[in-house]
């Protein structure tokens, strides 16, 4: 089991979700975050005040998957989130000790398998 954490552009979120659903990845959590990853600086001016925005709006996606689902998940995110410019984001794949499904108490692989799909 792995935890896939992806940080992507907010304007690409819709395409990423589409790609994930298409790849049968149906359980995920998203949060709006701000980050810095070497993008070109954004300069904004409010009256006489000019500021450099060091942090960009991003969306962080967390997905717990069984091992054989890591690659399709990563490929789906990579394909949908890429624009080719600096600032497209990162994907982290982390080992996971245990996953529990709260409703049933199922553990690990059964817990990350979507409802209605027999754990393969």
């Amino acid at each position, binding site marked *: 089991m792995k935890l896939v954490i992806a940080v992507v552009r907010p304007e690409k979120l819709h395409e990423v979700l589409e790609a994930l659903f298409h790849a049968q990845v149906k359980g995920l959590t998203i949060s709006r975050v701000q980050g810095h990853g070497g993008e070109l600086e954004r*300069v904004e*001016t*409010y009256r006489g005040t*000019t*500021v450099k*925005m*060091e942090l960009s709006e991003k969306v962080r996606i967390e997905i717990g998957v069984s091992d054989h689902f890591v690659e399709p998940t990563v490929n789906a995110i990579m394909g949908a989130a890429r624009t080719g410019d600096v600032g497209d984001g990162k994907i982290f794949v982390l080992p996971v000790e245990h996953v529990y499904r709260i409703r049933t108490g199922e553990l690990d692989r059964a817990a990350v398998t979507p409802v209605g799909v027999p754990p393969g």
Partner: protein
Amino acid sequence: MPPINGSDTAWLLISTALVLMMTPALGFFYGGMVRAKNALNTLMMSFSALGFVGLAWAFFGYSVAFGHASAWCGGGEFFFLRGVGLAAQGTIPHLLFFAYQGTFAIITAALISGAIVERMRFGPYLAFITLWSLLVYAPVAHWVWGGGWIGKLGALDFAGGTVVHVNAAAAALACAVVVGSRKDYARTAILPQNVPFTLLGAGLLWLGWFGFNAGSALGANKTAALAFANTMLAPTATLVVWTILDLVRTKKATAIGAATGIVVGLVAVTPAAGFIGPMAAVILGAVAAFPSYFALLYRARTRLDDSLDVIAAHGVGGTVGALLTGILCAKAWNADGADASLHQLGIQFIAVAATLVYSLVATFVIVKLLGFVTALRAAPKDEGLGLDFTQHGEEAYARGEGAILLLDGRSE
């Protein structure tokens, strides 16, 4: 020539200020319906019309609209306000008449922005509304109000159902077609960022519309009172019918629906305001809800990205209002108007059709030509980032976390 009348002048001074306020109000009405990353850009499309169209009106537009050259176009006698002084024009100072009419030119140009929000570059937009106000709005205003051929035909357009609303909507159609749809249109749900803004805008538009319609009597008189009451009554009926349609269709009375219904009622009563009786205004407002309501539903299923439904609200509403004016008008209420007749309905139809065709074709040509000179659309990447940052270097809801102050005003 009657002398200047104090009470007429006082009412037109107030009306001019009220109509000027409608353009910022429109900015909020529109600005609430776009995504947060384009909120400032959408508001600026209205606000900048105050400057660019206002100045174009003072330099050239007023003369094209209200000069006396021919039935098709005014002359150059009032260019740069030459000869527009404090002498009486009707019963108010000429300069006040100019200012009052200028507020109409401004909001009509700003109305078009609803069809091209969230994707058009700001520079070409400014060039477009400036050119449009001179080449489309001013001639059409001349046809109807400036002594031109539609006015001579006997068409009734009290405050601009054709000149303002049909005109802007036809231009909106041409703009939406030439500029093209937003890259996310019909692929992603594009939701309004601030519905209270839209309601605020609709409320302020209604307030301003009393100046728009009742001010168009050009005096503090019985006709102004009639137009004022009708401007109150017609939208009440539209709002009620719209809410009922919402309830019947989805079991929910939507807030954006209410805001839209109010605007549609105001649009529909605009050509009729000073020519029809109060109960006729109620009928007009109620009837006008249906075509616009269903036009909105239909448009959303098409490929035409008239993003904020200028055509359904202003085009359909303005056309219905202009035609119903021919059926509901009564000389008993305004001796300068006409009695309802099929003949009058025919004239109303000609006025709408001529405005629609001219505006559609002329706008199409203007935007196409501008498109040859410069890119009309923001780059897809900029459209993704949002036009607030890419066009204006600001954000509507900047949080300032991680912002570093640049003391010399430039990045080091």
